[in-house]
């Protein structure tokens, strides 16, 4: 876990007991993205302007209602980071000209899904990183174009069945490593989170807030509708994603990647895969041993150097 000592969130009981984000949104029951956003928003606070890219969460603010106590700007699918650039620059201009006070300034946060983040939004994200934009990039990653019915996106994992890869082998490609793309370009901060690990999550949001410059938060977002499981299992699935090592909880600071949780011993990946309808074809009508081995080998290969380091 990130520096518990420096955090105001030392234990679970330190987590906020009431939430900033209003209830009754149009999100699906059990939405892992909404869980992560709810937890993060409590730390981001009201003086946040969300600059939204087209995705599931675009339907959270529907005229004349919004669950956000702070501000909101919907942009388009491809250019939310550019919208963040315009808002940040305008606030800087207003500050420099003395037209607003420091108390009137806002934290600018892009709110995007993985479809925009790994696809058409990548160019605008890249530009914002190049320019050292002072913003937080919050991506809820439900591993597909969820809002349109879970078609394959750049962040869909290997072998997952989607609306466009519904055949019995699922998506043949591999999940794009968005964290590594960011880390390779030396952001101020980058972290992976998951709603099922709220203490780890809030500490990372708290840490992200303490930096300026481009900061990325990537939240694996278990998605009952897109992944095919009962909404009540969302937290369970999140825990399994971490315990199997499928979803490493980590952060990037000052050129170094470190893990905030080392699952040990790691559970077999099939414990995570089995409850999800999108992976059912790996188990029924018969086990696809080759595919399961391949996925396990990928996770093992990811962890091998880190585990070796720990044991050394």
């Amino acid at each position, binding site marked *: 876990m990130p520096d518990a000592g420096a955090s105001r969130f030392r234990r679970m009981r330190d987590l906020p007991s009431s939430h900033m984000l209003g209830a009754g949104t149009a999100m699906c029951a059990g939405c892992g993205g909404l869980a992560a956003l709810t937890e993060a928003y409590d730390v981001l606070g009201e003086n946040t302007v969300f600059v939204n890219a087209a995705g599931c969460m675009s339907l959270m*603010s529907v*005229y004349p209602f919004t669950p956000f106590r702070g501000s*909101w700007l919907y*942009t*388009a699918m491809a*250019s939310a980071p550019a*919208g963040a650039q*315009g*808002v940040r620059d*305008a606030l800087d201009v207003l500050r420099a000209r003395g037209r607003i006070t420091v108390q009137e300034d806002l934290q600018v946060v892009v709110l995007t899904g993985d479809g925009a983040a790994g696809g058409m939004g990548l160019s605008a994200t890249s530009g914002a990183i190049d320019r050292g934009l002072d913003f937080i990039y919050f991506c809820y990653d439900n591993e597909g174009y969820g809002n349109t019915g879970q078609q394959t996106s750049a962040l869909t994992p290997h072998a997952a069945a989607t609306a466009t890869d519904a055949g019995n082998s699922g998506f043949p490609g591999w999940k794009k490593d968005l964290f590594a793309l960011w880390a390779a370009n030396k952001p101020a901060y980058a972290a992976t989170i998951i709603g099922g690990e709220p203490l780890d999550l809030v500490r990372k949001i708290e840490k992200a807030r303490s930096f300026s410059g481009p900061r990325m938060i990537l939240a694996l977002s278990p998605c009952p509708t897109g992944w095919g499981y009962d909404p009540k299992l969302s937290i369970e699935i999140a825990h399994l994603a971490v315990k199997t090592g499928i979803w490493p909880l980590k952060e990037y600071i000052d050129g170094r990647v470190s893990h905030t949780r080392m699952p040990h011993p790691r559970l077999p990946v099939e414990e995570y895969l089995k409850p999800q309808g999108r992976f059912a074809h790996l188990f029924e009508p018969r086990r696809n041993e080759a595919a399961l081995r391949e996925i396990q080998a990928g996770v093992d290969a990811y962890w091998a150097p880190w585990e070796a380091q720990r044991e050394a």
Partner: protein
Amino acid sequence: MRRELMTGNAAAAWGARLARADYLPAFPITPQTEIIETVAQWIDAGEMNCRMVMMESEHSMITAAGAAAATGVRVFTATSSQGLLYGMEMLYTVAGWRAPFVMANVSRGLAAPITLEPDHNDILAARDSGFLQIHCATCQEVLDASLIAYRVAEDARVRLPVIVNLDGFYLSFTREPVDIPSQDEVDAFVPPFDAGPTRFRAGKPMSQAVAVLGGTPYSYFRYETHLAARAALEVYAEATDAFERQFGRRYGALDAYRCDDADIIFVMMGSFATKAKDAVNKLRAIGERVGLLRPILLRPFPDTAIRQLLAGKKAVAVIDQNISMGMGGVLHGEVSAALNGSKDAPPVLASFVGGLGGRDISAEEFFEIAAETRRAAENGETPPPRLLFTESELREIRKLQAIAHVEHGSDEAEGNRNGEGEERHA
């Protein structure tokens, strides 16, 4: 005030500078680049207090421009052609945000085939976006229109972005004498941007650009934007009156040249209208009663003024520097719609397409247009639309095709498939 020789691009940059634009998101494209380079130099030299940021595309540039305007600062930006189309999604979007700012578009023909020289298909593709459009014919107009544009865009009755259009090469790179008004005079004409309550501030949470469900709220907000654009006719008239009082130069929604006693009227937009003006003078010299009507405002469209100015004329020739594939000249359709149902509308409204990709329209062609339009007026029949192209040009094309190994036997088929002929590399 002082007078300098400057390009249309420099005049656009001067407009941004004198209006004290706070923010300029930029992306380079020929023939617009001089605008952003000029501003960059002024910022570096401390002559202009503006934050400029290089974006990675026009789509992002227009997003940033709209987002900054929605946050409450004065924004200027500039693009051209492919860039305008690359940002097209955001043109509609930021206009719907009611984010007021000014964007120069340096008109350039659209691909394919890719070219650098001007026509108006780029700007007309933005016709229905919600951006207002001011079309310039001289470098002076570019500077003046930029100032007028801020007055109109930021007016509480309008609150819409405005495109100031100047033709690539013919204005962008052509030096003309331009009066540069003093900063004090411009400050009096363009007061500081008052964003009103629509802005982002801590402690005053605001949701902008939220989704709607269903056709009723959608229609309401779309109609509101349309009505604001219509209201801009009056706001533009007020702004140009104030401009005349302040600076002594008069701009209408239309520029009517020698129209009063004319029986035949050319209708044209942009810098090529100055060629038409020259032809009008030559035709007048031989006794032809010809005039020129140049829409300066394209959105909002000054339909009433057009109806009034064309009332009772014998015939009108609309010369479009654009082409709507499968339909013809766009301005011809617009003028036709304005005249529809009007009792004393001219009986003949002829359509000519020319000047595509910077192709010249010669004085002789204007004479031929006038002659054909007069013949039509006499026999009362509107002629079919004409695509201006001369025999000598066709001979030139045939030579190029021969070089490109196009078989003469299949000229027509090949002519329809641009660029597919084999190229011979020397």
